[in-house]
């Protein structure tokens, strides 16, 4: 099924394309906007961006597969990304990763069966002064402890249940 964007996003896309000397340069921002709407960069999304920017689908595909933020399939409602790079690990992140895996019943790289949570292990999130840290859908949670991580999962579950 062909992909369609909301009028607002289409407008944003058009404005973005105008910020570069050629259309092809808008590949990264276009993929961001399409993923926002579509949840992932699948074949339809690649096709859409290729047509919009007037470049071959192969060009879009090679870009989409290079960058870690473009998801090949949609994440759960809450995407928990825990940093385990050096500073965070020195501050207990490897243990927090285990706590999260236990709480959620999944390993990094997996999504819960109900589609609620995706857990990922990521590289340095540029927040080492408040390590260990994680992001939920791009929002930082810093200075974590096992108790705070458990409480966070509980909060997200409550939030999901409430609407």
């Amino acid at each position: 099924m062909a992909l369609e964007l909301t009028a607002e996003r289409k407008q944003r896309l058009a404005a973005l394309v105008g910020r570069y000397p050629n259309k092809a340069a808008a590949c990264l921002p276009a993929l961001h906007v399409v993923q926002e709407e579509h949840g992932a960069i699948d074949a339809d999304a690649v096709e859409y961006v290729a047509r919009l920017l007037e470049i071959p689908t192969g060009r879009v595909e090679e870009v989409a597969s290079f960058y870690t933020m473009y998801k090949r399939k949609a994440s759960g409602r809450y995407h928990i990304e825990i940093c385990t790079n050096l500073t965070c690990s020195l501050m207990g992140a490897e243990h927090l990763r285990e706590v999260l895996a236990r709480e959620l019943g999944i390993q990094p790289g997996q999504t819960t069966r109900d589609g609620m949570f995706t857990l990922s292990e990521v590289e340095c999130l540029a927040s080492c002064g408040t390590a260990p840290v994680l992001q939920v859908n791009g929002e930082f949670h810093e200075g974590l402890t096992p108790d705070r991580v458990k409480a966070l999962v509980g909060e997200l579950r409550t939030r999901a249940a409430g609407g």
Partner: protein
Amino acid sequence: MAGERLLTRNWDTPDAVRLPVYEQRGGYKAARKALGMTPAEVIAEVKKANLRGRGGAGFPAGVKWGFINAAAPTKYLVINADEGEPGTFKDRVLMERDPHQLVEGCIIASYAIGAHHCYIYIRGELPKAAKTLTGAIAEARAHGYLGKSCFGRPFELELTVHRGAGAYICGEETALLESLEGKRGEPRLKPPFPAVVGAFGQPTIVNNVETISAVTHVLERGGDAFTALGLPGDGGTRIFCLSGHVKKPGLYELPVGTPLRTLIYEHGGGIREDRALKAVIPGGSSTPVLLPEHLDAPLSVDGLKAVGSMIGSAAVIVMDETTCVVRAMWRLARFYHHESCGQCTPCREGTGWLERVLWRIETGVGRDGDVDLLKSIAENMMGNTICPLGDAAAMPTLGFLNRFRTEFEQHVLQGKCPFGGRFALPAGWQA
């Protein structure tokens, strides 16, 4: 010890992200001043400031600007806001807490090099910083500080925030340019350097967020006054990112040349639970590790070079006596393996090989000769790749081997990690 704060002076003012507040605190005076000078005068001021690049390479900003072909009709300024060097977290905060300082620096630098479009390439994982910056740019445009005629002068400037999408390699300036052009972030061979052929085939200057934020202060107080705050040839203050096993991790703006000991023990409050210091990575994950005996080294480009390391991005990662350095190095190798773009064989294969050999040493199945093997892999990566990512993985490996060879050998001899195969948990955590 209260030194003078330039770059971080607005950080305690929550509304400083708003233009009127920024202006009330002295903002946008420097840009107005610069636009009343000739571009050559602005460059001369930045040269006098001895402002060394804050992104990692430490190249003097004014000298870099001087390389641009002034006669070229289209030129670009590109800000490297792809902060991703493990241990580094200053640029994110600079953008989140004082975006106008960066916008002002962009105006000054663009004017100096004759660029009419500046792209800020911001790491994809920092949506809040991107949003804050986008808001600041809109405000500056509404005030007439950006656009067709900045500050009512005959100088046109467009500022565009370009979000990355998750690739450490894009912090390398030519990979960043490829990515800005909508491609995979694969570094280019140099020469030509970006100042000759950069973004979209045009002459381009690429500078780090902190470097450009500092330019505002160079213009505000003059190059001589700025350089006097630091060391000869390496001027001003810079923001140190202190993390790891210290009592008070965080960002500290201090004069260039402040001793490592002062940062860790005075500002950082010393080592957690008053343990002994074991090792310090002084300039981000790519820089060779230092020992307690190096604590008196001045934090400057030359000061750290003299003790066999680098100031890099001024990201200081502190490790106490409980730390297994094999595990620390393994974690970094795993990072470089993940982030290698795959273009060059020594890096693509070498980073993975390092990771695998380090992991078997750490997990007690290291073989005789593995320690020498690590050294040989790292040495064969050094200088044999298009960009410095290969070096960035090899340098810390050689650094750890150089300073802690016995610990690597112990792992192999004992057939296990003497530290129990994990990092010690923070106080109060239950395993």
